[in-house]
């Protein structure tokens, strides 16, 4: 009942302030559009907006990002279905059947299924998140000290290394380079300067905003520039023909299964919605009586993937808000928003800023509902907006990123760092490294080193101290097992990754 009252209070706060409503609507439409426009993603928009959240309250900033997260995950399905270009990794399995459906003239039905299932998965996940986050945070306050947080960071990074790059080793190198960037500046215990190369600029560390902008927004433009040289995609055939309720009801088990899978995957730090979408899709194939029809334009493929990835969005907020640990690139940027307001996400947020938490929860709930509304009413408009030529979008994105990087501290060197990060990101991406891994490493690196130092001081520098703390020990073992499994897989298993079926062969 408390949760319901808090939700009502959050809803009132959200809708009683016109600025909040404006930010909410901006987040809903912006997330959906940037998720849907080929070549950019909600992460691009989030990176551009990150510096400007300093002008908003912490409540508004986090609310904006969480709303974009919900609608952006859905928006990415549109490009996956229409162009075979997933807006984000979590939409990749949607393309397996969504794009063949477009080829078969059923784009509208695929988009309609994505609308309904994204909304459903997201709403259910948000409701569970509202019920579960506060008790987990309460428990975390007493059960989670520095050793446990360090162990969770280790576990999260171990899991993240196995998703997102071309090989396990490249996943680890991506994360380690992020951790190394986080080392630059003053060390957290003694305040000793590290890797500053006698440059005063580096004393305060490499700022995460220009770095994130460079890795996500700028490198994306460079990748698109290269694709443009090669010659690009063809415009799809458009139709709007939503699936009937009975058609969706026929897939009720797929929906329920995907919600469960999505939620449990989303709660794991480091992987979240991407693994959720793939597992949702794979399970749908495994449980199907006609698995051979998947990859040729089967509605259930779109339903499973889109339900699971949106179900992961609410769950991904649990480790962020209850433990202060981001699970992916966008939640890592949310940590940035907290830090810009001199706050640290974690269990204490529920005590010190309960209003913030419940406004964010309410906003996520309504954002998922709005996917349904806007998806049904505005799909045609969104599809037509996708026709904006990229050559007109690219300079706008680059200039927005320029202003974003400069606005943080008023230093042109931040702009140079951002574009340099863009160039580095471009070369790393084309070599199969993970940009999300670098950013996770960058954000978790500071938390990891600080909690490691605190843990070792607490345990009097005795490693055996971890054996007396079951949660920390369990997480460390889980992390090591994940690592060992990945190393075993890297050397001894044959690759059997899901491949996008060739629609022309259908």
């Amino acid at each position: 009942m408390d949760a319901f009252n808090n939700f009502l209070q959050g809803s009132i706060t959200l809708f009683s302030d016109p600025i909040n409503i404006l930010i909410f609507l901006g987040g809903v439409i912006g997330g959906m559009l940037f998720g849907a426009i080929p070549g950019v993603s909600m992460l691009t928009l989030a990176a551009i907006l990150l510096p400007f959240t300093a002008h908003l309250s912490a409540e508004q900033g986090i609310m904006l990002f969480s709303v974009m997260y919900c609608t952006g995950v859905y928006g990415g399905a549109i490009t996956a279905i229409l162009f075979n270009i997933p807006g984000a990794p979590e939409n990749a399995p949607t393309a397996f059947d969504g794009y063949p459906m477009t080829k078969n003239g059923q784009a509208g039905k695929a988009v309609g299924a994505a609308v309904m299932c994204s909304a459903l998965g997201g709403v259910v996940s948000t409701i569970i998140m509202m019920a579960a986050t506060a008790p987990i945070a309460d428990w975390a306050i007493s059960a989670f000290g520095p050793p446990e947080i360090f162990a969770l960071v280790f576990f999260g990074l171990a899991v993240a290394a196995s998703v997102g790059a071309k090989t396990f080793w490249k996943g680890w190198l991506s994360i380690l380079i992020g951790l190394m960037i986080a080392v630059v500046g003053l060390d957290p215990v003694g305040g000793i300067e590290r890797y500053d190369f006698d440059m005063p600029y580096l004393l305060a560390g490499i700022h995460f905003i220009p770095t994130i902008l460079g890795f996500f927004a700028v490198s994306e433009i460079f990748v698109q520039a290269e694709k443009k040289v090669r010659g690009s995609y063809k415009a799809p055939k458009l139709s709007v023909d939503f699936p009937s309720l009975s058609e969706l009801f026929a897939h009720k088990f797929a929906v329920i299964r995907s919600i469960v899978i999505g939620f449990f995957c989303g709660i794991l730090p480091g992987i979240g919605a991407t693994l959720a979408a793939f597992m949702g899709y794979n399970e749908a194939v495994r449980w199907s009586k006609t698995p051979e029809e998947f990859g040729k334009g089967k509605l259930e493929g779109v339903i499973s993937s889109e339900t699971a990835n949106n179900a992961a969005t609410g769950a991904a907020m649990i480790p962020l808000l209850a433990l202060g640990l981001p699970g992916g690139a966008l939640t890592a940027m949310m940590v940035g928003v907290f830090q810009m307001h001199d706050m640290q996400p974690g269990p204490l947020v529920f005590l010190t800023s309960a209003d913030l938490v419940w406004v964010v929860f309410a906003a996520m709930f309504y954002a998922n509902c709005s996917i349904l509304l806007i998806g049904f009413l505005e799909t045609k408009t969104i599809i037509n907006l996708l026709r904006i030529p990229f050559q007109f979008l690219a300079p706008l994105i680059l200039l927005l990123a320029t202003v974003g990087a400069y606005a943080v501290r008023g230093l042109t060197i931040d702009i140079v760092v951002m574009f340099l990060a863009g160039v580095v990101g471009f070369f790393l991406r084309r070599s199969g490294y993970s940009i999300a891994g670098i950013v996770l490493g960058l954000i978790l690196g500071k938390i990891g080193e600080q909690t490691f130092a605190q843990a070792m001081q607490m345990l009097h520098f005795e490693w055996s101290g971890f054996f007396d703390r079951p949660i920390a020990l369990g997480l460390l073992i889980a992390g090591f097992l994940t690592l060992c499994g990945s190393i075993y897989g890297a050397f001894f298993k044959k690759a059997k990754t899901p491949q996008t079926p060739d629609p022309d062969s259908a």
Partner: protein
Amino acid sequence: MGRLRPGHLVEAGFWLGLCLFLYVYSFEFDKNIEIYKFGASGWPRAIILLMAIAAIGQLIHHYVKGDETSSQIISAAVDDGSEEAAHAAHHETVKWYLSTFALLAIPFIYMRVPEWIAGTSEPGDAGLHTARLIVAAILIAVVVYFIRHHRVRVMLMLPLFFAALLEDFGFYALAPFFIIGVMYLFGERRPRPMVLIMALIFGFMLTMFVKILYVGLPVGNIEPFYSIGSWVVTVLQ
């Protein structure tokens, strides 16, 4: 050589070289901290060690499996087409990389050479301003020369060059040319849409950030660019 290609060796060499450099540099701050026995260099050195292990693991992986994707990895999720695009555009040769890095030196030439010519780094020095104007003009001519036939390379360099010029020439004088340059590099050739879109984007940036949000963008140091930038800010605010 197993399935190793020269590129794999270069990649491993890069990572191991980086590890060696970072390790050697860590002695610069290898100081004891009374309350923390691992000192300031313990954490970075642990990361360096793991990086070296991962780089060697990656090399062994290439030796055994070539470019095959690890079975644990959700490869389709990370396949954003960038590798495929690089391959299709023949942008993977040593020559391509060398010429790209040569072009990427342009912004850094601008950041260093004028000070070297003028013999001073004093921001207000008239001689330094003249040197910067001359060097910028020469480098812009080089960029214009390359822009038609090396689109991707120039695209990588142009934003960095723009950023390097911002401090001296200001956002207001450079942004219109930057917008047109990016559109050109993305294949737009029609003058009328280019000018129209440039005006729209520039107008939006000025209205949104200068007029509404009062973001103080760089106005430049060198005349007449400084006066132009200041005039735009005065008019808008």
